[in-house]
């Protein structure tokens, strides 16, 4: 088993000796790391290093990938997400995910956000939930007067914040983000980054990003992955100012390979 990388504070998520293979080829190799609650943790590393695969383990998205097999444990609040009797749908409600490209449904803004709560049989005040979710996604002021118009009419950046609102509407505890700003322009990116920073007041956020500077700006802890292994994991400030591993130093200074 590889060394366990663990920050201080109460732990929300943990990978324990976690490996993922795609048709027999290893993508994540025996990773053990702990993710503290109400913090932002970033996974960085070159393409193909396994960061997105690792992220997807935390809400069982790899179940949907043909040929993928997961071994080891992904633990959420003490429970193995891959244990018998665990309902992946319930996992995905409690651990939401935002993807690289905004993927709103071809419905109204309102119905996009209401979609998850309705499926889950939400019985409270729907209008209030919609407003709260849109506010928490920093989108409310821009769309409050046109909740009935199509979500597809929004800009890319607004669509992405709508997807974040949709994720928040089912009241998850963790939000996973896979390259959430890579398809957006700098202003929209900045809004998403500001939002990520604020989300940690209520949620645990794990973000995968190609953009090292983005990881530096928004995260509390950063993990650098390379060929399926965690090379280094620690406080973001330390990792970006004085990394302990030569490979991390080479990667973040652009001297890799």
């Amino acid at each position, binding site marked *: 088993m590889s060394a366990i990388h663990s920050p201080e504070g109460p732990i929300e998520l943990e990978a324990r000796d976690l490996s993922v293979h795609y048709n027999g080829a290893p993508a994540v190799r025996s990773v053990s790391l702990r993710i503290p609650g109400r913090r932002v943790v970033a996974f960085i590393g070159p393409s193909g290093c396994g960061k997105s695969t690792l992220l997807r383990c935390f809400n069982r998205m790899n179940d949907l990938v043909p040929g993928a097999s997961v071994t080891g444990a992904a633990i959420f609040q003490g429970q193995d997400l891959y244990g018998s009797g665990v309902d992946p749908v319930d996992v995905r409600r409690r651990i939401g995910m935002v993807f690289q490209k905004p993927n709103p449904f071809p419905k109204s803004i309102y119905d996009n956000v209401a979609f998850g709560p309705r499926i889950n049989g939400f019985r409270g005040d729907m209008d209030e939930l919609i407003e709260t979710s849109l506010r928490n996604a920093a989108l409310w002021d821009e769309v409050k007067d046109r909740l009935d118009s199509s979500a597809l009419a929004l800009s890319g950046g607004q669509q992405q914040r709508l997807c974040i609102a949709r994720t928040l509407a089912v009241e998850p505890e963790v939000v996973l983000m896979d390259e959430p700003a890579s398809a957006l322009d700098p202003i929209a990116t*900045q809004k998403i*980054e*500001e939002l990520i*920073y604020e989300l940690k007041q209520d949620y645990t956020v794990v973000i995968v990003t190609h953009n090292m500077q983005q990881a*530096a*700006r928004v995260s509390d802890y950063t993990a650098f992955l390379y060929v399926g292994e965690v090379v280094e994991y620690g406080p973001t*400030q330390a990792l*970006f*100012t004085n990394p302990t591993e030569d490979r991390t130093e080479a990667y973040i200074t652009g001297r890799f390979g």
Partner: protein
Amino acid sequence: MTHRHFQDELDELKTKLAEMAGLAEEAVRDAVRALLESDVAQAKLVVQRDEAIDALELDVEERSVKLLALQQPMARDLRLITTAMKVSGDLERVGDHAVNIAETVHWLVEGPLFPVVPEIEELVRLSTGMLKDCLDAFIRGDTKLAREILVRDDRVDELHENTFRILLTHMMEDPRKISAGMDLLLVSGNLERIADLATNVSEDVIYMVEGSIVKHHAEDRPA
């Protein structure tokens, strides 16, 4: 639009520098007062309190490095942070010069009495004034004030030279005064350096606000 938390951290950085500036200014003022009033206890306090200035320098440096590494600041923000690092180094040196002055008090009190020459009192007035003003210029981003300070430094240099000549004359007339004379010469030198550091800070303020380099007479050089 800047990240709000980034803006907050920039404001905190400024606050730390202002705090450091206040302590450095106070140290010089107290050291000089201790000298003029032969107050050994006051002088000791100045030496003790220098630790706080040193600690703030490290704090400002650490914050600056963190902001540079994590936020990739640009333009005005970048200039503020690089300036903060230099100004904190300058203020730390000001604190050290205050300590040097305070340490002289001990010897001047013990040794044969030597009247503080009026030139030194004028030096004190000018250099502490420059120090106070350059810190105001930094906090307010006031380049007009910063430019005025650059001009005042010439008068300080002149006074320091005069002091040197006067003290030399005294020492040649009466060799018993050599020890105290040397001490006062050091005080004069320290005050002159404080004025130089105030000049450096002023040059950095101009760079911070306008992005133009005025040190080493860079303005006069052909582009």
